[in-house]
């Protein structure tokens, strides 16, 4: 049963995860994904100091402390990286661990004085989504609105800053101002999200949705939208999954779902996904095989062999038998060859296609020798590849640039239709 508390928790998780997804896009594009992790760790001492100074558990003071220390962490990384010979990588590592240790010391002070609870550190790391209040959700919503507004208003400078900081600078944008704004936005989201979802999830939320969404689009607007949706779905899914057992931490389950999204993305995304690349490679390979067979049939035609079987073809050309069978099936599906009793012969359309490949091969050989000063004995290998790539448009350019040639460098005829 979905109780009203649960619905509240799910809404809260969805909102904070979506907002983190949006903010994470900038961190990701600016290659500062790990800075988010450092900030998340560095909020701990801020929360502790806020508690000690105010003497209350009032979320406002805890948040304020978190904001101050989170921003201080970003400044520290920047100073260490710019003013010493330490690399940014070391700076991030130093800040993450020292701030966190500092915070842990404070927590032990608090627990010794009998004020706080022992579980503080654990909640800080993994969050306690189950105890989310209406107030928390309202704060998340306000933060979400603020983020959406600033991302809308400052879309252009943020975009320039993320893709090309130097360019933004030369265009007269106040780069420092917008960088500070982005940093503050990141720190704010981390600080308010931490108590609900914990450090580890916050880091994952800033990285995984943004990294995944980048694979689906090239537009920043769409990227932020997709990232927000990924975040929200993972938030709700993780919240539901963590109901499976008692005392199940929410954060890790959200991360599992985020990771699932990332995995799906890496496998199925267009252009850069694993399966897309695999399909493209096998398409390339099929095209090469088909065109090679057609070319060979043409060359056999030239010496008077009009009909071939698999084995008579293999006498002339070396090729894997299964591959050859498959290729013959493909080209007869395309009506480029006819098959009668295991004997293959070029159709009229096939003859035109075969001529095209031979023509491209010979044109390219000519181009290599005439334009690129290649020696005649070195051109065949390259032309073997290029013949499959030359588009009709490139062919027209080639023919024109070579002034309608009739013979290739080996004095063979270049067949036109």
């Amino acid at each position, binding site marked *: 049963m979905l109780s009203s508390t649960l619905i509240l928790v799910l809404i809260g998780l969805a909102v904070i995860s979506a907002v983190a997804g949006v903010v994470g896009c900038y961190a990701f594009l600016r290659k500062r994904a790990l800075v988010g992790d450092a900030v998340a760790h560095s909020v701990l001492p801020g929360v502790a100091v806020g508690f000690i100074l105010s003497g209350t558990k009032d979320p406002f003071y805890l948040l304020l402390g978190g904001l101050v220390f989170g921003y201080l962490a970003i400044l520290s990384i920047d100073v260490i990286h710019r003013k010493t*010979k330490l*690399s940014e990588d070391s700076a991030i590592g130093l800040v993450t661990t020292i701030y966190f240790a500092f915070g842990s010391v404070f927590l032990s002070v608090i627990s010794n004085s009998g004020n706080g609870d022992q579980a503080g550190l654990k909640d800080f790391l993994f969050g306690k989504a189950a105890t989310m209040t209406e107030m928390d959700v309202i704060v998340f919503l306000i933060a979400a609105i603020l983020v959406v507004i600033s991302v809308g208003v400052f879309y252009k400078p943020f975009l320039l800053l993320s893709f090309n900081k130097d360019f933004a600078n030369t265009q007269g944008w106040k780069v420092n101002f917008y960088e500070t704004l982005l940093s503050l936005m990141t720190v704010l989201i981390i600080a308010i999200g931490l108590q609900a979802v914990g450090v580890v999830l916050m880091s994952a939320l800033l990285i995984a949705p943004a990294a995944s969404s980048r694979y689906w689009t090239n537009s920043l607007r769409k990227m932020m939208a997709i990232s927000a949706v990924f975040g929200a779905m993972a938030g709700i899914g993780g919240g539901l999954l963590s109901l499976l057992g008692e005392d199940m931490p929410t954060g890790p389950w959200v991360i599992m779902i985020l990771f699932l999204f990332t995995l799906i993305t890496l496998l199925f995304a267009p252009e850069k996904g694993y399966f897309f*690349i695999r399909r*493209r*490679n096998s398409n*390339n*390979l099929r095209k*090469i*095989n088909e065109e*090679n067979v057609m070319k060979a049939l043409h060359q056999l035609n030239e010496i008077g062999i009009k009909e071939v079987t698999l084995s008579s073809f293999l*006498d*002339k*050309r*070396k*090729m*894997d038998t299964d*591959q050859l069978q498959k290729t013959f099936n493909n080209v007869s599906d395309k009506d480029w060859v006819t098959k009668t009793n295991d004997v293959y012969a070029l159709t009229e359309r096939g003859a035109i296609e075969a001529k095209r490949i031979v023509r491209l091969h010979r044109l390219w050989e000519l*181009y290599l020798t005439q*334009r*690129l*000063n*290649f*020696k005649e004995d*070195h*051109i065949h*290998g*390259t032309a*073997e*590849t*290029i013949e*499959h*790539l*030359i*588009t009709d448009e*490139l062919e027209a*350019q*080639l023919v024109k*640039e070579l002034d309608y040639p009739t013979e290739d460098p080996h004095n063979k005829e270049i067949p036109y239709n």
Partner: protein
Amino acid sequence: MNSIEVHNLTVAYNQLPVLWDVDFELPKGQIIGIVGPNGSGKSTLLKAIMGLFPLSSGYVKVLDSSLEQMRSSIAYVPQRETVDWNFPASVKDVVEMGRYQPGKLFRKLSNVDKQLAVEAIEKVKLTPFMDRQIGQLSGGQQQRVFIARALAQGAEVYLMDEPFIGVDVATEKAIMDLLQAMRDEGKTIILVHHDLQSVTANFDYLVMLNTRLVTHGPIQEVLTAENLQSTYGGQLNLFSQLQQLIQTKDFPIREKGFEDK
């Protein structure tokens, strides 16, 4: 005997073919310049010869044998900006690396090794700076550290990637004198160079490269206006369109498994 022989070398970087069917044999005992515009594959060529890049096609021979057999006879001098000069090492530390050998890294360097390093430092005139941290040297001195490291190795063939970049005129001359002295001892120096101004006087032999090999030969023969035009006159339109096509379609740069009998 050839110092380096490159046959049908094709190399792709991120699917983009950066060297295309390059084919040449280089003589021994000369200063050989590899020239070409930015992005013409000069540094890639050196790295491919040193086995740092997988080859899409072709092979490389060093002193008529395989690279593996000749590793100790060929020394690589990388570009200066490939290292972090804040690294805690002195001139001597870096030059001694020239004597490191695979399989002997758990053993101490012998006195002979150390002596050879000291002599190499002397040759490049860095003896007073022997114990200085490498970050506290000038650009020219840093370049000489790398050359000394190669000298310490005692190689026959030296491959140098842009040794004159970021170096003042006086140092450029000092380095050139050093290279000429090495050549006069029979060593072969092959260096990548982006600038044609100072080339003619000092190089013996030239490889002109622009993704494909434009030409190669003794400098007085190949340094013609026509060759310069083909090297620096920009990439041919059709050629670069095809290069892009190969990258965007992720096309195999060399096909396999289908051959004429």
